[in-house]
């Protein structure tokens, strides 16, 4: 079993390091677990996930992120990924001129030992089987990464990448937005099979709907850069029914 520990994490924009967006966040995820984070727009959910992945726009001003007890903060983004982190982007980049096949091939090759050559036949076999599973047309392999993809196609492509790269921890930032109900079911099936193995998931979402398919072990409410409430899956239902104002009032009462 592996663990991803986020300890009193403060994150700011690199340009304004004195203005934290994430303000002392603690969370530990173990493989086999699904943690859902819900929270209003602009509360710092994407900032948290991108900072963990090593996005250069953000600085971690204090706190730590540990993968199996070792800090990853000194690691380059590609090293973090090879160590087992995966970020499914809320807004995946379009890369005209780089085909899905070449892109994934480079990513798979990056995980091989120095000097080891990728077995192209085996690679394509695996790629096609994952694509079939996710019901992605094989023709997509020759298309440029995310270029001209619909919102849902982009999200499916993120899941395809996750399936190919087999991370230990996946930070899924609103992967459900833009997915139709069939795609949602397929993605959920994918995550459910993977988590049976060695996968820990941080699921950022606005919709209880997803959690019907991927049942979370923990639900956290993020507000103003912090986790302000944690519970089991029933918390998501309660949030859906009462809205974030309920959390705000509770918070105000607690600090009063």
């Amino acid at each position, binding site marked *: 079993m592996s663990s991803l520990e986020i300890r009193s994490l403060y994150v700011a924009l690199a340009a304004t390091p004195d203005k934290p967006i994430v303000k002392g966040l603690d969370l530990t995820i173990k493989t086999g677990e699904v943690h859902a984070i819900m929270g209003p727009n602009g509360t710092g959910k994407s900032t948290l996930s991108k900072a963990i*992945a*090593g*996005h*250069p726009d953000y600085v971690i001003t204090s706190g730590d992120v540990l993968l199996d007890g070792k800090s990853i903060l000194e690691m*380059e*983004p*590609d090293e973090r*990924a*090879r160590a087992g982190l995966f*970020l499914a*982007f809320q807004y*995946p*980049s*379009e*890369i*005209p*001129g*780089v085909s899905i096949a*070449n*892109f994934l091939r*480079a*990513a798979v*090759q*990056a*995980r091989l030992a120095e000097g080891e050559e990728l077995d192209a036949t085996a690679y394509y076999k695996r790629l096609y089987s994952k694509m079939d599973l996710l019901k992605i047309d094989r023709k997509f392999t020759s298309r*440029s*990464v995310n270029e001209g993809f619909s919102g849902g196609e982009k999200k499916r492509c993120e899941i395809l*990448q996750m399936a190919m*790269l087999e991370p230990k921890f996946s930070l899924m930032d609103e992967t459900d937005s833009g997915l139709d109900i069939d795609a949602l079911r397929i993605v959920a099936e994918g995550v459910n099979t993977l988590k049976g193995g060695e996968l820990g998931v941080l699921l950022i979402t606005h919709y209880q709907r997803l959690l019907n398919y991927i049942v979370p072990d923990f639900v956290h409410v993020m507000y103003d850069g912090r986790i302000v409430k944690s519970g089991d899956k029933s918390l998501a239902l309660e949030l859906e029914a009462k809205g974030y104002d309920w959390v705000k009032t509770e918070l105000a009462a607690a600090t009063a």
Partner: protein
Amino acid sequence: MSAPALSSDAVIGLDSARFAQHLSQRAYLPAWWLEAKKAAFNQFNALPMPSRTDETWRFSNLKGIDISGFTLPEDPATQIPNHTRFPQTAEIVFSNRQVVGRSTVPAELAAKGVIFAPLDEALKTHGDIVKQYFQKHPASLGSEKFVALNTAFTSSGALLYVPADVEVALPFVVQHTLTGENVAAFPHTIVVLGPRAKATLVEFFISGGAANERQLAAGVNDLHAAEGAQLTYVGAQHWSANTLAFQVNSIVAERDARVLSLNLHLGGRQCRHESNSRLLGPGAHSEMLALTVATGAQEFDQRTLQTHVAPHTTSNLLYKNALLDTAKTIFSGLIIVEPDAQKTDAYQKNRNLMLSDTAEAHSLPGLEIQANDVKCSHGSTSARIDAEQEFYLRARGINPVETRRLLVAAFFEEVLEKLENEDLHVALTGLIASQFKR
């Protein structure tokens, strides 16, 4: 490969004694050719070196143009690298000045009159064709002195002649390999396609020895597409890191002919490339393409001219440079539309991808329009690598070097996809990838 014949020549510079010796060794060649060489040698000596006041050399590092102390290599190297493989019709491989590998033109094509031979041989067997097209339309973009030096000492090169209505699917390949310290190569290749003929010639320019051998290369091409012909020319240059290189392309397209030229620049210390397309008949088109990976302190200096002589002609130039480290590129392009060339469509684009803050890209686009009913545009852009794209690739575990390779390949794809031949596309992509090592 047979043991190289020992030569009695002393290693001296490219002076008149060396030239006289070079001529005497070629006494068996046609008189007109020897006269042309003599005239060229005199012209070389008479012409001044490029100077600061010369507009055609603006921004060039003139101090880097030191042609002293070079001589002709005498013997072929025993070991030479081979160009990237892809299906081909026939090839001629030069090591230094000798032919060291040659495959014959398939009998069926030879029967149709296709000629593919080293230049020295072609001068003997088909001197009339060589004479008709040799420097018929000199490029004249500033390197006249080095073109003259090429004519004086032409050392390797070929004639490809494809007669009317003959189409050849797979490329012809010429490889020039230069090995040794302080040696020079003077390649000259002539491609002539008869009316409605179709063919591709790929030329590789490679250094064969240590990565840092001091070398000089001055190459010339004459590319001629007769009425309705379709000519594809690819020049891929990977000279040693200490090579001073000049290459001058002259492109001629007659009525309804279509020429695509793609020059790939990878090696060399300082490289000057000139290309002039002349559109001589209505319906003629020239697609002028170039890709450059400029690393370290390399300088790539590219000068182009699109000359529209006849009406209803089109040209499209797209030169893309990827710049790293402290590399420098210069692009200077001119479109000339002559008074008769109404209904010309001419485009010229130079795009630079800056992968370093210390690299330098200069762009000097120009138009000279003497007709009134034309469509012309030119432009240049310099952009940095997209930080979000870069992060996306890194976030998938792809290291910085490989990330750059992918993004440069993506940037180049717009040019490479214009090649009809998929195998050639793959081969060039591989050659470009070899510039990005972990």
